[in-house]
């Protein structure tokens, strides 16, 4: 809703990355933390509820156990009185009372007893009790030996039943007790596992993106940046951070480009002095020829006039050529990478800085190895790098120094090496680590400290590297390593 791009922008990798980062469902770290704690709470709540239920059941069972004991008691009392009656003819009413009490208890606790011993057993118990009560009544009226035997039999069954109920319930209580003893232990174990998982999970949720951000910033500081892309399915707080880092990288890149542009302007300024001097020669030739024409036109033959006019034209062209190189270099345009010949690149940059070299009186020794492969790059940017190196070399050398430029295959496979060696004063060891830092200069107010920093930026962007070897008093070699162009599609094969 209201997003700037309905589809991922294709031309700008950082904008595309931002789009991908934003177009994900949101599931914030905050929500994840809340969900984790909720899970812990649910577990603890569940344990509490389970404990509560177990304890309530235990309480209930204890109460029922009392009832069962009372019932057993009644039955046993009834049997004792029954024995007294059979032996001494006394206490039959007391026996009947206890049987009735037992019957009442049985009826009242019917459900619990059924649960404890099962419906069939309960029915059996009930049958025995009723039969026993009936037999007691018969015994009162007309005792027979059969009645007595049946009475004893049902009495024994009744006692067994009562004891069975109590026993079953006791066992159930023991079971519950062992469950409630185990419950907190199991809960503690589960909670520990859950906490460990949540800790792991949150750590991963936070530490991994942090690690990526650290990697991205150190990558940016090395001048090579690939925009941060989404690694998870959901948007969270780190999305904002990734966007901020991408934004920062865009800004840095823009500033880097501005610095490179400023540096180029300064190089153009230096080169312009050389070009202005170089222009003096064709202008002088034109001026002398024009004067000769003015002075002698009447005495000159047609062939001589032709010759003079030819000179005028050739010198005008020459002047144009002198300026064209610089204009090519100065023109502001989008970087454009294409296959380049190293030798041609060096020659055109030497032409560009040639006037400057002539001005300083330096000798130039150029050696290019045979059969060099093409490199892939932006001609203007790479020219800027080489021109910077030449101008630095000139600055480092006293008048009439020796500049050596050599191009060959690099020691590392897949790289072309262009080395610019001067016979200058060299770079002190303590300055070496800083020479590629922006605004670091050993030239005092004369330098901006941008040349090498910008050159390094350009070369790194091309996938290459600049290395320096220097000895104070002897000179410096700056070696530019550039990756060989991938083999072009074999359309002529």
């Amino acid at each position, binding site marked *: 809703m209201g997003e700037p791009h309905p589809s991922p922008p294709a031309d700008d990798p950082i904008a595309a990355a931002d789009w991908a980062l934003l177009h994900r469902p949101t599931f914030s770290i905050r929500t994840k933390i809340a969900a984790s704690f909720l899970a812990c709470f649910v577990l603890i709540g569940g344990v509490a509820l389970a404990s509560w239920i177990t304890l309530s059941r235990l309480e209930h069972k204890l109460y029922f156990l009392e009832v069962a004991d009372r019932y057993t008691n009644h039955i046993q009392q009834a049997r004792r009185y029954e024995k007294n009656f059979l032996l001494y003819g006394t206490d039959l009413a007391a026996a009947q009372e206890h049987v009735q009490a037992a019957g009442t208890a049985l009826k009242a606790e019917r459900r619990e007893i059924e649960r404890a011993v099962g419906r069939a057993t309960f029915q059996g118990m009930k049958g025995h009790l009723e039969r026993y009560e009936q037999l007691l009544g018969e015994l009162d009226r007309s005792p027979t030996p059969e009645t007595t035997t049946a009475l004893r039999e049902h009495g024994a069954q009744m006692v067994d039943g009562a004891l069975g109920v109590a026993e079953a319930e006791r066992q159930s209580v023991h079971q519950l007790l062992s469950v409630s003893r185990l419950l907190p232990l199991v809960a503690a174990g589960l909670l520990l596992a859950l906490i460990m998982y949540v800790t792991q999970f949150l750590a991963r949720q936070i530490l991994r993106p942090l690690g990526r951000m650290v990697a991205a910033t150190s990558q940016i500081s090395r001048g090579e940046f690939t925009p941060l892309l989404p690694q998870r399915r959901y948007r969270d707080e780190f999305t904002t951070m990734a966007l901020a880092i991408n934004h920062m990288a865009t800004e840095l890149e823009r500033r880097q480009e501005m610095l490179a542009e400023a540096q180029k302007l300064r190089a153009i300024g230096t080169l312009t002095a050389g070009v202005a*001097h*170089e*222009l*003096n*020669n064709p*202008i*002088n*030739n*034109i*001026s*002398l*020829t024009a*004067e*000769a024409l003015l*002075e*002698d036109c009447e005495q000159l033959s047609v062939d001589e006039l032709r010759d003079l006019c030819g*000179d005028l034209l050739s*010198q005008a062209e020459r002047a144009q050529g002198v300026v064209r190189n610089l204009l090519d270099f100065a023109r502001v345009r989008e970087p454009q990478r294409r296959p380049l010949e190293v030798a041609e690149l060096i020659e055109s940059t030497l032409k560009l800085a040639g006037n400057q070299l*002539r*001005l300083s*009186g330096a000798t130039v020794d150029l050696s290019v190895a045979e059969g060099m492969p093409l490199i892939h790059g932006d001609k203007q940017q790479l020219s800027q790098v080489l021109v910077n190196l030449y101008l630095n070399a000139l600055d480092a050398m006293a008048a009439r120094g020796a500049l050596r430029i050599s191009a060959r295959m690099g020691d590392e496979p897949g790289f072309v090496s262009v080395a610019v060696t001067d016979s200058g004063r060299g770079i002190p060891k303590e300055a070496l680590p800083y020479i590629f830092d922006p605004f670091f200069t050993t030239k005092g107010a004369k330098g901006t400290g941008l040349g090498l920093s910008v050159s390094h930026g350009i070369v790194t962007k091309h996938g290459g590297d600049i290395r320096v070897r220097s000895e104070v008093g002897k000179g410096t070699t700056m070696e530019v390593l550039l990756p060989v162009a991938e083999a072009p599609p074999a359309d002529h094969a």
Partner: protein
Amino acid sequence: MPQLNVLVLDDEPIVGKRLRPALAKLGYRVDVVQTGADAVRLIGEQVYDILITDIRMEGVDGLEVLRQARARSSRTRVIMITGYATADLAQEARDLGAFDFIAKPFKLEDLRAAIARAAGSFSAEAHG
């Protein structure tokens, strides 16, 4: 006044081509060369009254030719002409004994005036 002999050294061939008739017209005997080595060879063969030389050249440069010419004879008046004129270079040339220093592009009349001054210095020397 005997005919003054002039040596013109410039690696730009057009300079020699134009100066030869322009100076011959005024009665000078003019030799033209395009390299410092040739100039040094000719200086070894004869003493020139006036040497007009460019400074920046491949191989033997104008300052070296100036040195050689002054070493050969203090009579030789050396006029430096260069497209790369700087104050430092002018000073260096003067220190080496250059008579005049003219920046390119120049007008013929400027050069002729300089040569005339050089020629005048001979008669001043002769009278002084």
